[in-house]
């Protein structure tokens, strides 16, 4: 039986960086994730570390207490990661509307929450003016807490969402869509105000010693195209990404980005690489852009992160899944600039044994 927990992990963020930048050949497979669902972290911690898990069931409007970060860092460490992701929290942020439904995941704890896509917290200038912008200040505590437990050799990656936060929570996707035509100035104002908040957060944490870089999360596409017109992304979103990236680079740190969806047909991916100057790109679906194809086409310009297709991770039988992951590694490992991980996140509906297969194949590759 494969034990995902390493007896003596040897995290080496510097090695990961060198591999992603292409200045060093990988000596082993490095792992990367944007996030793991609580249920997955809990199951791994309880079953394989034999430790209790303290679940923090609140949204991003609350900052979890210190013990939460201790266990997250510990888990990533013991699984063999060189980094641990720390998501920003936004205390005092009004709670967005969610809809809850049955959770069909194997490891479901409680209901599944779904974003209210119809409209968001801001639907008018009046909402905008009443929004507690001034109360939203960067909260460095998650990074501080995580840092206290960070083993030598490991670094934190920090992140939050900008465009995604706007279409998910502040305006809603349909709300944003209509307002782009009905109240374009309001849309501009929301993007400007939230952009400043995100920048302030990154400014507050990027200089911290154990922060290795920004792993910014912003879905900009879906199945067949970008979520909004590419020119709208270029006007409203990418200039902020460029600021976040420049900030990271000024501090000698990396800026990687997560975005789902098809960013290829309209060349947004080229803007990200050439203009925003991302160091790594994350989020792949086989039906949109197989990770191996991405690496072949763009791998000389940017690091390829993760990419094991979610649908396959969930549904494929063991032999096929193993073969697929091996094939991805065989193609993407030579030459470096690749780290292994899921195509999105380790969601609670990925059967745990399938995630273990990913870890095992990564550990075994090349040996």
């Amino acid at each position, binding site marked *: 039986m494969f034990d995902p927990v390493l007896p003596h992990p040897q995290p080496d963020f510097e090695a990961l960086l060198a591999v992603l930048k292409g200045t060093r050949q990988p000596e082993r497979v490095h792992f990367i994730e944007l996030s793991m669902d609580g249920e997955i972290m809990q199951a791994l911690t309880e079953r394989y570390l034999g430790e209790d898990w303290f679940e923090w069931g609140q949204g991003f409007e609350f900052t979890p207490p210190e013990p939460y970060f201790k266990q997250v860092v510990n888990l990533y460490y013991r699984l063999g990661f060189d980094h641990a992701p720390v998501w920003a929290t936004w205390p005092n942020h009004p709670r967005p509307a969610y809809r809850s439904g049955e959770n*069909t*995941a194997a490891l479901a704890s409680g209901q599944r929450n*779904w974003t209210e*896509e119809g409209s968001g917290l801001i639907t008018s200038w009046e909402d905008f003016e009443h929004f507690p912008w001034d109360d939203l200040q960067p909260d460095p505590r998650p990074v501080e807490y995580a840092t206290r437990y960070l083993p030598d050799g490991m670094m934190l990656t920090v992140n939050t969402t900008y465009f995604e936060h706007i279409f998910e929570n502040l305006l809603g996707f*349909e709300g944003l869509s209509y307002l782009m035509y009905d109240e374009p100035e309001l849309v501009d104002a929301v993007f400007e105000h939230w952009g400043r908040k995100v920048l302030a957060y990154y400014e507050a944490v990027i200089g911290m010693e154990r922060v290795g870089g920004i792993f910014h999360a912003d879905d900009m596409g879906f199945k067949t195209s*970008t979520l*909004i017109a590419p020119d709208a992304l270029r006007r409203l979103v990418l200039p902020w990404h460029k600021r976040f990236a420049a900030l990271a680079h000024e501090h000698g740190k990396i800026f990687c980005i997560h975005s789902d969806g098809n960013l290829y047909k*309209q060349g947004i991916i080229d803007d990200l690489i050439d203009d925003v100057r991302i160091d790594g790109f994350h989020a792949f679906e086989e039906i949109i852009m197989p990770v191996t194809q991405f690496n072949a086409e763009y791998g000389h310009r940017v690091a390829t992160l993760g990419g094991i297709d979610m649908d396959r991770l969930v549904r494929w039988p063991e032999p096929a899944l193993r073969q697929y992951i091996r094939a991805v590694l065989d193609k993407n490992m030579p030459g470096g600039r690749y780290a292994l991980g899921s195509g999105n996140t380790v969601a609670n509906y990925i059967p745990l044994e399938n995630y273990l297969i990913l870890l095992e194949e990564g550990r075994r590759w090349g040996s």
Partner: protein
Amino acid sequence: MGILEEINDAVIYGKRKDVVAGVEKALIEGYDAGVILHQSMIPAMTEVGLRFERNEFFVPEMLIAARAMQAGIDILRPLLVEGGVEPLGTVAVGTVQGDLHDIGKNLVALMLEGAGFEVRDLGVNVSPDHYVAAAQEGVQIIGLSALLTTTMPAMKAVIDALEAAGVRGQVKVMVGGAPVTQTYADEIGADGYSPDASSATRLAKQLLNIE
């Protein structure tokens, strides 16, 4: 530009007020409601769909065009009913049980309506028996939407429920959503799959042998 072209243009660019003004003007000029719908507004939505497929239009543009068309239809509806203008067919669309993602399904519904179908929106988190009920009430097509692999199996559950209720032969089932593929559609015995809301209208027509 003739009034029908004006309305067509206003729908394509989502100009709700211009659509309303145009439709009112066209009616005063003596145009038949069915003609306004079929020669101006439906072709406009078809064009919107094609631009969406070509990645010239995106979700916002599709939404505002559909909203503009809706404003025109609101004026025409009583006249269409009076004139006995028949829809192309009836479709019930819903997001399957356990899945509460709305917007993909909404766009499919809007485009089907925009193509001249009568659409029953069953909403999100729709249990198999609601689809069965719709089939029993005579809808010709059922459209199933899902966002995540974890909710996709509910599509198969709908097909099984239609079988069990003895109505599978009466309806066509089409499926779509982020993780859904033609292979998956074949695997669960659906009648069709399409990758986006615009091609969904062509699929629906094909399934009913229209055109």
